[in-house]
């Protein structure tokens, strides 16, 4: 009987040899392709700009973008430049909304499609007013770069960058005014990451920190030191509230660890008692 069953199983195996290579496309998908949820469509801007047909300076654009904060947050070419990333022929067609690269004066409007609060404050600033009145003045990419845009931080304000246009004195005072609040924001970001690593999902605090940070950085773009100093207390108090929540969560985590350890020791202790009791009976 068992030989019969084994024989049937062996015969069952035969079709696999007969259909060798039947699912090679499955293999290639299995091994290499993005796993099918909703498949991410190929972006023709990237594929074309990354190809060997392009001049090196154009190829560098895709490399720079891929290393950027925008890329990490799925902000791809068409979000800024318009056009159709799914259609190779009409990708750069004006009918499909392609706007190309802006003139220096139009950069704030270009970036301001998304960074609304920041561009409003920037246009109120000395930098913004000078730019709009046609003088030589910095725009967004002067400080943040164009394609390799990194997560903004206080380190952008530097003597090397600011002294390209003016002395560093005023910028230094601004940096000092920002320093404590920015350090606190960085510390809170670090602590929230720590909570995530501990298995906590601090979504409310993350949202609050994000909006506080965005408002504070929008305020900074006025380049008005006195305004920043006047409103720092307000932001500090908001950050303190977030900090208190984070500290409370860390305390809760500590409690959880202690409670689980208590249960562990209780069961280990009971186990030892029962084991010794069992040995005695034996």
């Amino acid at each position, binding site marked *: *009987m*068992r030989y019969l*069953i*084994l024989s049937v*199983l062996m015969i*069952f*195996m035969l*079709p*696999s*040899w007969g*259909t*060798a*290579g*039947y*699912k090679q496309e*499955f*293999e290639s*998908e*299995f*091994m290499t392709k*993005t*796993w*099918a*949820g*909703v498949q*991410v469509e190929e972006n023709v801007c990237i594929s074309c700009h990354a190809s060997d047909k392009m001049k090196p300076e154009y190829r560098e654009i895709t490399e720079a973008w891929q290393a950027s904060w925008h890329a990490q947050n*799925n902000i791809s070419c068409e979000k800024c430049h318009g056009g159709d990333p799914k259609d190779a022929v009409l990708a750069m067609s004006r009918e499909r909304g392609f706007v190309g690269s802006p003139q220096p004066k139009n950069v704030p409007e270009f970036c301001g499609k998304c960074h609304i609060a920041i561009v409003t404050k920037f246009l109120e600033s000395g930098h913004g007013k000078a730019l709009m009145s046609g003088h030589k003045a910095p725009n967004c990419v002067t400080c943040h770069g164009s394609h390799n845009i990194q997560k903004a931080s206080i380190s952008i304000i530097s003597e090397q960058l600011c002294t390209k246009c003016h002395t560093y004195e005023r910028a230094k005072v601004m940096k000092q005014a920002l320093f404590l609040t920015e350090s606190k924001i960085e510390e809170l970001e670090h602590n929230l990451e720590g909570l*995530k*690593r*501990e*298995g*906590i*999902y601090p*979504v409310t605090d993350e949202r609050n920190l994000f909006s506080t940070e965005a408002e504070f950085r929008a305020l900074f773009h006025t380049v008005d030191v006195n305004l920043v100093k006047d409103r720092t207390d307000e932001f500090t108090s908001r950050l303190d509230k977030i900090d208190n929540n984070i500290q409370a*969560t860390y305390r809760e985590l500590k409690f*959880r*660890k202690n*409670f*689980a*350890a208590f*249960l*562990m020791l209780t*069961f*280990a202790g*009971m*186990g*030892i008692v*029962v*084991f010794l*009791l*069992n040995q005695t*009976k*034996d």
Partner: protein
Amino acid sequence: MWKNLRHWLDVRIGLDGIIQTQVIDYRIPKNTNIFYTLGFLAVIAYILQAITGIVLLIYYVPHPDYAFSSVQETIMTKVPYGWLFREMHTVGSNLLILIVMLHMITVFLMGNYKRPRELTWLGGGLLLIITVIFGFSGYLLPWNQLSYWATTVVTSMPTAFPLIGEPIARILRGGDHVTGMTLSRFFALHVAILPPIFLTLVGIHLFLINRTGISATPFGKIDDEQRPLTEYKRKSYPEGYPYYPSFFQKQMYMMMAYFAIMFFIITFLPTLNFPDAVNSPADPLRTPAEIKPAWYLLAPYQLMKIIPNKFFGIMLQLILLIVFLIWPFLDTQKEKNVMKRPILRGVFIFLLAAWVVLLYWGRS
């Protein structure tokens, strides 16, 4: 009060008789070892999964828009001790699969699957499969990046079958991709479809164990069970140890050890089952750098990856599974002691080593 209650129950269900036959008079062979408690331990682990699962079920919302937040926000942060129940359920599910696997391995090594216990083995094998399906279906429910993409990988595996593979994958997913429909299906599978099947199988398994009697280990001195067994005879051990208190105590300290290990993991390795991807909601548009299924499916997953012909890969696994389930019917040798069967021992060690290697290979 207690005496009256006991008498009341005895009149109606024969409580005294049950205690007398199943606890006081029930004898265990003298050469049993600690591995004989693994079946009992599995039952305890299943009960714990049911209790913690019911608590989670109260707060869990099986909808793609709310599933993640109901787990990560509501259960983990708002419900008092919700975190403990979730940790116990998650750690417990992994320990449970480990215990059931260990139970099957030890039963195999002691030859306790041999007749008249073929059906007990078959039931146990099916219970192991059900347990893995429990784990696999529960894995998707938190609807995070890890669970979403692990489910996408595993539900793609049946597509290796020609003709029927795609329909199977579509039935599992409720469409071409892992979506809210998949979540509904897996939720129904996890809480409504699997439990009655599981309870029926456990009932049959326990009935068969009770009917045929406990099997003695071949490693000790006493194994007087005669083969072939041609007529029904319940195996009993009049000279053995009473079940209570000696064997009961063994079961109890194994149970305590189980809980101690579980709380050790919760205390010192709370993120063992919760890597970073668990803290992000499922996002079909963003594929994580590393996608892999849960550890108990890593070996089959890796085997699928390394065999060039996928159909052959899945057929090989299916056949190994069938051979595993019907092994007692194929192995008719009288010798129970695997130490006296070098070929079987060699094949077993090879398969176990291959499984471990594939598991680690799949992890890396």
